[in-house]
C-alpha cells in the first residue's frame, strides 16, 4: 500500500514537472515573439515619427533656402542699383569735377557682384538643388515604397515560419537612413546659408 502511494506521488510530481517545463517552453517562445513584436512596433513607430519630422524639416529647410536665395537677390539688386546710381551721379557731374576712381571702383564692384551672383546661382544654389533633389528622391522611395513594404511584412513572415528578427533589422536600417537624410538636408541648407554673410559683408562695403 505504502509503495503504491509513493509511486502515485512520484508520478504526480513527475507529471507536474513535465507540465511546468512544457508551459515554460511555450511561454519562452511566446515571450520571444512578444518581445519581437514590441521591438518591431517601437521601431516602426519611431520610423513613422521620423518620417513626419523629416517632412517638416524638408519644408522648413526649403523655406530657409528660398529665403536665403531671395535675400541674395535683394542684396544683389540693391547693391547693383546703388552702384548704377553712383556712376550716374558721377557722370552727371561736369567733366572736370568727375572722380574717375569712383567710376572705376563702381565698375569693379559691379563686375565682382556679377561674379558672385554667377557663383551663387551656378554653384551654391545648383549644388543645393541637386543635393536636395537626390535626398527628396530617396525620401520618396523610402516613404512610398520601402517602408510600406516592410510595414506589413512581419505578419506574413511569422505565418511563413520565417524569423521576423531580420524584418526588425530592415526597419532599423530605414530608421538609420532617415537619420542620415535629416543630417544631409540640414547640411545642404547650411551650405546655402553660409553664402549670405559674404553677400551682407559685400553690401556693407
Amino acid at each position, binding site marked *: 500500500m505504502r509503495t503504491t502511494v509513493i509511486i502515485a506521488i512520484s508520478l504526480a510530481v513527475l507529471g507536474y514537472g513535465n507540465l511546468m517545463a512544457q508551459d515554460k517552453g511555450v511561454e519562452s517562445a511566446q515571450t520571444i515573439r512578444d518581445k519581437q513584436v514590441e521591438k518591431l512596433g517601437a521601431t516602426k513607430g519611431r520610423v513613422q515619427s521620423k518620417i513626419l519630422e523629416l517632412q517638416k524639416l524638408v519644408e522648413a529647410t526649403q523655406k530657409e533656402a528660398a529665403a536665403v536665395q531671395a535675400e541674395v537677390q535683394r542684396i544683389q539688386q540693391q547693391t547693383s542699383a546703388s552702384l548704377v546710381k553712383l556712376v550716374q551721379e558721377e557722370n552727371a557731374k561736369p567733366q572736370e569735377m568727375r572722380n574717375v576712381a569712383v567710376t572705376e571702383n563702381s565698375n569693379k564692384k559691379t563686375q565682382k557682384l556679377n561674379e558672385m551672383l554667377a557663383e551663387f546661382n551656378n554653384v551654391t544654389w545648383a549644388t543645393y538643388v541637386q543635393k536636395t533633389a537626390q535626398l527628396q*528622391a*530617396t525620401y520618396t*522611395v*523610402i516613404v512610398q*515604397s*520601402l517602408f510600406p*513594404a*516592410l510595414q*506589413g*511584412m512581419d505578419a*506574413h*513572415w511569422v*505565418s*511563413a*515560419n*520565417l*524569423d521576423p528578427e*531580420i*524584418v526588425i*533589422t*530592415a526597419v532599423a*536600417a*530605414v530608421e*538609420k*537612413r532617415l537619420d*542620415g537624410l535629416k543630417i544631409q538636408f540640414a547640411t545642404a541648407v547650411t551650405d546655402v546659408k553660409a553664402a549670405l554673410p559674404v553677400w551682407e559683408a559685400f553690401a556693407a562695403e
Partner: protein
Amino acid sequence: MRGTAVVVISIVMLGYGNLMAADDAQALREKQLEKLGAMKGRIQSKVTELPKLLDPAQNGAAAMQAAIQQIQQKITADVARQAQMQLKLMELQKLLDPNQKGAAELSAAVQQLQQKMAASVPKQIQQEEKKTAEQKLGEIGQTFAAALANYNKKLADMQGIYGQITTYVLPSMPAEAQWISADLDIEVLISLWATVEKGADDLKAMNTDALAELKKTVTAWEPLTKE
C-alpha cells in the same frame, strides 16, 4: 618651392586614396549584388522545386499510401484465411472419432493443418497471442490511419507555409533597385533574402522528415506482405 611640391604630392596622394576607396566600395557593391543575384536565383529554383516535393503523387507519399492499403488488404486476407482454416479445423475435430479406423492418420492430418495455420499467421499477430487477429488488424489500421493523418496535417502545414512565401512574402520583398537608390545597407537586403532561402530549405527538410516518418511506418509493416 619644396613646400608647394609637398602640398601637390599630398593632394595627389589624397586624390589617389579617394579613388582607391571609391574603387573598393564599387568592388564591394558589385560582390554584394552578385551574391544577392545568386541567392535570388537559388530561391527561384527552390520555389519552383517545392511544389513537386509537396505533391503526394510526386514525392512518394501516394505510393506509400498505396503500400499501406496493400499491407492492410494482405493482412485482412490472412486473417480471413486464418478464420477459414479454424472453421475447417473445427469440422475435422468433429469428425474425429478415436475409436474409428484411420483415426491416427486423421489426427496427423489435423496436426499438419494446425502447423500450416500457425505458419500463415503474421508474426506481429503471433507475438500477441491474447489478442485476436481482428483486434490486431484494427490496431494496425489505427497505426496507419494515425501515420497518414499525421503526414497529411504536416503536408497541409507545409503547403500553407509555401503559400505564404509565394503569395505574400516574395511579392512584398523590397525592390533591390529602390533599396540601392535609397542608399540602404545592401547586407540587410541580402539577409532578408537569406532568411527566405532558409525558409525554403527548412520547408524542404520538413517535407523530408515527414516522408521519412511515413516511410518508417510502412517499412515496419511491409514484411507482412512478403510472408
